């Protein structure tokens, strides 16, 4: 079973994402901000990270840069999942090493489509 770290400061979003991803047979861990996610990754790298952008303490982009700079941090597939839906944010995320990008609101079909494009389902 592949592992997915769901990073979002909204409990509701984490719950929705967990439900969709568990149905797709992922083992789910949660983090509430970028720092929490980074700690979780340094402890044990997940296969996939579903990543919000705007969060307290450390935002998604800073987390991504820190992850990619860490040992083995190039391995996890990172899929942004954010309300930031303009081209400049998308470009910044992809340049920083994100593999895919979901613009909220999302549904099961979008998650499934994006995860299959990056080859994890």
């Amino acid at each position, binding site marked *: 079973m592949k592992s997915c770290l769901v990073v979002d400061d909204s409990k509701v979003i984490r719950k929705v994402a967990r439900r969709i991803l568990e149905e797709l047979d992922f083992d789910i861990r949660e983090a509430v901000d970028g720092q929490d996610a980074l700690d979780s990754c340094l402890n044990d790298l997940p296969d996939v990270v579903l990543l919000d952008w705007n969060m307290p303490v450390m935002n998604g982009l800073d987390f991504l840069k820190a992850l990619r700079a860490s040992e083995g941090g190039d391995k996890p597939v990172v899929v942004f999942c954010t309300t930031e839906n303009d081209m400049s944010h998308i*470009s910044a995320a*992809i340049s920083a090493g994100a593999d895919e*990008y*979901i*613009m909220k609101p999302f549904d099961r*079909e*979008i998650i499934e*489509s*994006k995860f299959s*494009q990056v080859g994890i389902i």
Partner: protein
Amino acid sequence: MRKEDFELLSKILKERSGLVLSEDKIYLLESRLTPIARKKGMETLDDLINEVRLRRKEDLLSEITDAMTTNESFFFRDNTPFDLFREDVLPGLLQSRASSKRLRIWCAAASTGQEPYSLAIILSELEAKLSGWKIDIVGTDLSRSVLDKARAGIYSQFEVQRGLPIKLLMKYFTQAGEMWQISEKIRKMVTYKPFNLLDSFAALGTFDVIFCRNVLIYFHQDTKAQVLDRLRRQLPADGTLFLGAAETVLGLSDKFKPVPGKRGMYVTADHADQVRKAG
């Protein structure tokens, strides 16, 4: 819905589009036609049906047919046919058509444009190999309103996230408010024409590849068989037909053979014979 109302509407739809509506699809008639009734200032769907019965106005019948035959589409739908087109069909055509450097592709149920544009994106990604080639992509659909949307190439955030990788969105789309528009370069690669699959294909010319996906499922068996036989006439012996994942030629037409292991892909029976004899 009363039985005679259902029969009236299903008769109109069958005559105009070939669409076969079974009684378990009454909910679809209700959910798709009620908004048209409202738009026309009518109280209920019954009023709309009475209007149809009394006057049979062309624009109303056309609007009803559009509403019932339009289906959601997305970019690179089902992936497999597009992978097969890129990795299997196209390399063969690049060799066999090397002297004419000409390719014609027909999307026979183009809907809102996602399928022809997905093919145009694939070809655009390979443009280094295709320099000097003249490639036509023709997208046809019964509904003029979906073709208007296809020509504009403007899609919602939901539509561009179903099937389209983010890097292709970045490369081929520009943002227009809440919507995303596909680039002029890609739009110019596709020609759209309103067209009914029940009419003669002769004026369309011949094609190297035909995509006719998820439209035969709405037809009666005999209509399916006729359309398949007529599609064969628009293809050379080495042409390729793609059908939807839930569709087949088996029991309908002996003019095409499925390609083993390649879901949805069909070659002409003539070609399959040649390959068998050569092998």
